């Protein structure tokens, strides 16, 4: 992706005016580059990098927006570890990420494989499955989801028809997580579209050659499809994982901003919001934010490092 520019100096000293011209052009290009980049640079510095550093500073302070920030050192972080709600929010978010993302991706891959083999209507099906991804994180769907899952509601009734009676969903602290996992799995359309694009790129000759060798569908899947899909799988896995950590609107609406019942929907970002923008404990919330950045950063790093072992690029250099 990123091209590294290295101007290797020419050993020839003869063309001095040419060198000067090149240097002038380079300077002009740099000026033009920064001119075009000005909006992004402003945005990056004012809205991303600057706030990130400010947030780091704030995480070592106690700040309630009224008085000036008061330095407290590591107190916020120590408090975090002892805070039962923080621990709860971390557990809940971890469960959601560890369960929701794999199930969502497996569903996406399964439907992508299913659709890949057809010719008629594939575009229509693809768009239809993609639809939920567009609206899944919206407030409207959160409201619908809650209305569907209330005790004695439609899902409860259908569940009872199939013999399941979990004793309600929305009001039951044990069933709120499955409800959220279903919501994220419902949005499998987006990763599915990406999988489909990846599947399209797998050369058919590979499958045919494997058939000739007597390989069955499972063998073909494991030895051809998965490795060929690994870059796309990596991309999906990384993005969906990071995305899952940031769930907010659905949690807020379904729990009414409380993280209830009994804190069972207290997702990390919701607790961060409550601490920062309802209790106005901004130092504490900043500490939470940085913990999140560190965790996501570590996970991203692990993904990239591990990719050497299981992601096979098809040899095409970019």
């Amino acid at each position, binding site marked *: 992706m990123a091209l590294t520019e290295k101007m290797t100096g020419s050993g020839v000293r003869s063309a001095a005016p040419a060198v000067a011209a090149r240097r002038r052009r380079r300077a002009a290009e740099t000026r033009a580059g920064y001119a075009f980049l000005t909006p992004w640079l402003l*945005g990056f510095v004012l809205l991303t990098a600057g706030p990130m550093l400010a947030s780091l500073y704030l995480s070592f302070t106690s700040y309630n927006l009224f008085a000036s920030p008061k330095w407290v050192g590591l107190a916020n972080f120590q408090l975090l570890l002892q805070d039962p709600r923080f621990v709860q929010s971390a557990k809940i978010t971890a469960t959601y990420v560890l369960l929701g993302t794999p199930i969502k991706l497996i569903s996406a891959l399964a439907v992508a494989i299913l659709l890949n083999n057809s010719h008629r209507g594939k575009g229509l099906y693809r768009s239809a499955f993609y*639809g939920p991804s567009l609206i899944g994180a919206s407030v409207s769907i959160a409201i619908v989801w809650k209305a569907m899952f209330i005790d004695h509601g439609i899902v409860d009734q259908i569940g009872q028809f199939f013999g399941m009676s979990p004793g309600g969903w929305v009001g039951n602290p044990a069933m709120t997580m499955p409800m959220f996992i279903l919501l994220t799995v419902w949005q499998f359309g987006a990763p599915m579209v990406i999988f489909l694009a990846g599947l399209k790129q797998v050369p058919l000759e590979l499958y045919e050659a494997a058939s000739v060798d007597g390989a069955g569908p499972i063998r073909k899947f494991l030895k051809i499809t998965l490795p060929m899909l690994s870059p796309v799988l990596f991309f999906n896995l990384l993005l969906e994982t990071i995305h899952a950590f940031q769930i907010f609107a659905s949690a807020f609406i379904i729990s009414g901003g409380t993280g209830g019942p009994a804190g069972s929907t207290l997702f990390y970002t919701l607790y961060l919001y409550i601490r920062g923008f309802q209790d106005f404990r901004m130092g504490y919330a900043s500490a939470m934010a940085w913990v999140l950045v560190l965790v996501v950063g570590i996970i991203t790093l692990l993904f990239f490092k591990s990719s050497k072992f299981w992601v096979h690029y098809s040899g095409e250099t970019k």
Partner: protein
Amino acid sequence: MTTAGVSPSSVTQASSALLRRRHHNSKRIKSVLFHTFVVAVLVVVLYPALWMLMSSLKPTADIVGNVSLWPKGASLDNFAKALHGIGGVSFWTFFRNSMILAVGSVVGIALSASVSAYAFARIQFAGRSVWFALMIGSLLLPIHVVIIPQYIIFNNIGLVNTFVPLLLGKFLAAEAFFVFLMVQFMRNLPRELDEAARIDGAGHVRIFTSIMLPLMKPALVTSAIFAFIWSWNDFLGPLLYLKDPSLYSLPIALRLFVDQTSTSDYGAQMAMAVLALIPVLLFFLVFQRYLVEGVATQGLKG
């Protein structure tokens, strides 16, 4: 699957025709099975959306616990209630606010992301790789680490309870997704065009406006659609910065509506939920190809 090659001798020609017909039939059966299965999965997946739509037409008493989708006493009463607005603020005010934010986002992103993408993709300038890497990094950054200081800054400048905090970032290319999308697109455009223009004496500005922009229409359209939909559905931003009900965007108004309506009025809630989604659904129906293609190309370059 291709039909197995059979040596066309007069004896086996009949049997090969039979084989072909049987194969054709089995193919058709497979096709029917396939479509049935996919449609079944599709129905299950789309059920919540259908349920939402049907429930908005039913009287509330009919919604909870009634398994049948079809509305018995179908009426638009729920919609009338939803359109009535909340706390003295009409539904159209909320709609207008969402529109202002969405259209503003589209304009801002179209301008700032294209300009930034041009710099990244087409201009060799010192430090480009560093900035590019930082931009990609910002794609993976959880936004919660910046919302608190951003809020504090806007608060101290007195811009809370205005649209500015919600739109400023769009005009400063703060959403790296769009910059990345356009960079990828631009990379596929042949450089000969640039060079030809440069030989003609055009500077970067001219190359950008006369050559790049017109060619970038697909990427711009895709970006515009995503920008519109994401802004329309945005919840956290408006939640933080819009305090006056007369400034609320639809998602926030929807939440206010739900907080204030009695739980026995699911009908009105569903109607309002449907109304809030209509523009998104319209965009989806009209532009679904752009959307899906946009998503698909994301994953290919990794």
